[in-house]
């Protein structure tokens, strides 16, 4: 049980973080880190473990975000009550898009997911009923606690942390189970995996369903916190790409990779933003792009690879 100690410490650190970061600004960044970690971890199940590089996960994120805000604008419900609808829509999309698309290999799969997500983004942008290009707004002022509209980022931070913890527990469970082995086998070679009895399509679909569900939940939480979504922020190509980048940066196909990636990239984005005075100049993204390029060039396996390098050095020294 020695291995549990760092985990407990990490958990305590996560819980106690807001007490160290007094400023609202930092607390907000912390909440955004956890939120990004949720969607990147969800993406990781399909893109990382199974090696099926989806660049269209925005369609699931957007389902969640739109589900939440449509529940408010159409039914007058608290946004979070729309999350189940958003998740249901995402699961439906996962089946409809996933089943035919999983027959495609490599880059073709990525391209098809991009096209599917773009198609949905453009369609929503042209559809007045769901807000069109202008998007949807949440409640301007909280009507009750159920609206989950808080001034302080802290409640959001803790809600997100709870969801992330559940997702990481599920991922860790999958990692050690038959599903996890099957997913990695598919990444290693689908034909060989099938010859060993791995039902490839069913396995990928199972991973995609979990992935889509949590990505949609992340989308709903985003909409609840920000109180706004439009085709760009909910369904845009960059939403998908950010999940890929965060997971790949931290280490795709590893449990902690997406969290490491989010904890690196989001603060980086925020700091450069602050440094260059808002995102208006584009300098933020110059730095952002440069760092992504550098990491792909020197650490192709992501930041998690650093840890493995250190560990194997240590093992060498011990031997």
């Amino acid at each position, binding site marked *: 049980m020695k291995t549990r100690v760092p985990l407990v410490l990490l958990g305590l650190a996560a819980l106690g973080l807001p007490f160290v970061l007094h400023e609202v600004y930092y607390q907000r960044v912390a909440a955004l880190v956890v939120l990004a970690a949720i969607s990147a971890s969800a993406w990781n199940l399909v893109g990382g473990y199974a090696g099926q590089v989806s660049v269209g996960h925005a369609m699931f994120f957007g389902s969640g975000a739109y589900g939440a805000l449509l529940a408010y604008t159409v039914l007058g419900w608290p946004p979070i009550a729309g999350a189940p609808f958003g998740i249901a829509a995402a699961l439906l999309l996962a089946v409809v898009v996933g089943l035919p698309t999983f027959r495609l290999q490599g880059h073709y799969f990525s391209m098809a997911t991009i096209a599917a997500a773009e198609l949905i983004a453009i369609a929503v942008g042209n559809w007045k009923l769901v807000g069109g290009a202008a998007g949807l707004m949440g409640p301007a002022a909280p009507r009750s606690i159920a609206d989950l509209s808080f001034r302080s980022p802290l409640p959001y931070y803790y809600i997100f942390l709870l969801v992330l913890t559940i997702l990481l527990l599920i991922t860790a469970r999958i990692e050690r*189970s*038959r599903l996890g082995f099957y997913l990695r086998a598919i990444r290693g070679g689908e*034909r060989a995996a*099938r*010859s*060993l009895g791995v039902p*490839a399509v069913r396995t990928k679909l199972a991973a995609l369903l979990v992935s889509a569900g949590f990505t949609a939940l992340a989308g709903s939480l985003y909409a609840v916190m920000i109180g706004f979504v439009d085709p760009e922020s909910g369904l845009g190509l960059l939403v998908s790409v950010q999940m890929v980048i965060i997971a790949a940066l931290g280490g795709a196909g590893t449990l902690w990779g997406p969290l490491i990636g989010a904890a690196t990239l989001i603060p980086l984005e925020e700091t450069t933003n602050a440094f260059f005075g808002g995102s208006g100049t584009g300098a933020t993204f110059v730095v952002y792009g440069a760092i992504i390029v550098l990491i792909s060039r020197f650490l192709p396996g992501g930041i998690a690879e650093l840890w493995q390098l250190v560990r194997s050095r240590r093992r060498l020294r011990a031997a």
Partner: protein
Amino acid sequence: MLLEASGIVKQFGSLRAVDGACLAIDRGEVVGLIGPNGAGKSTFFNCLAGEVRPEAGRIIYKGADITALSPEAHARRGIARTWQVPAVFAEMPVRDNVMVGAFLRHHHAPAARRKAEEVIAFTGLAQQAGAPAGSLGTLGRKRLEIARALATEPELVLLDEALAGLNPTETAAAIELVRSIHAAGITLVIVEHVMAVILSLAQRAVVFHQGKVIAAGPPAAVIEDEAVIEAYLGARFRRRSA
């Protein structure tokens, strides 16, 4: 009769790779498929494994028609295979590679791990069990392919050139391994180029030529067969003139 394939036809574009081939395999046999390059034995082999779906013909396995079933359904029914070019899961440790196979019959990780350890010991991979499969040499990869296949607890194992690319010492070791698999009661179909391997392993050799079975019988007798010599020599002659 464990498996019976009859009238198998497979066409690739204008090329009829398999043209009405038939084969029956008894439980406990070791059958060698031989023939010159392009004779259709690999395509026929892939039909048996469910990797390629024939256009005509039927494959009956233990009384059931499996012709149109997927590769994974073949595995479930007890037919396992290896690949000509080893297709190990390079990033996964050797043990985890074998566990993927073991999960077919053992749904929980501890049971699958026990089964994997057993097969790893049997195939002589215990030393490398923790290493990534990508770090293995050719012999190691071939062993791992066999181990993965055995972990699915098959009754019939299809070996696709499992001994190609090995040096003489390694070949001897691999032949020993195949013998012990047979001794464990598993039926084997071997596609092989090296005639010496067929002579020392197979009880029956089946010769393919132009998509058809042209001879079958004890290996030593088959290689004396007129039609077989003709097929090999003819092929060689054609290749030289090309």
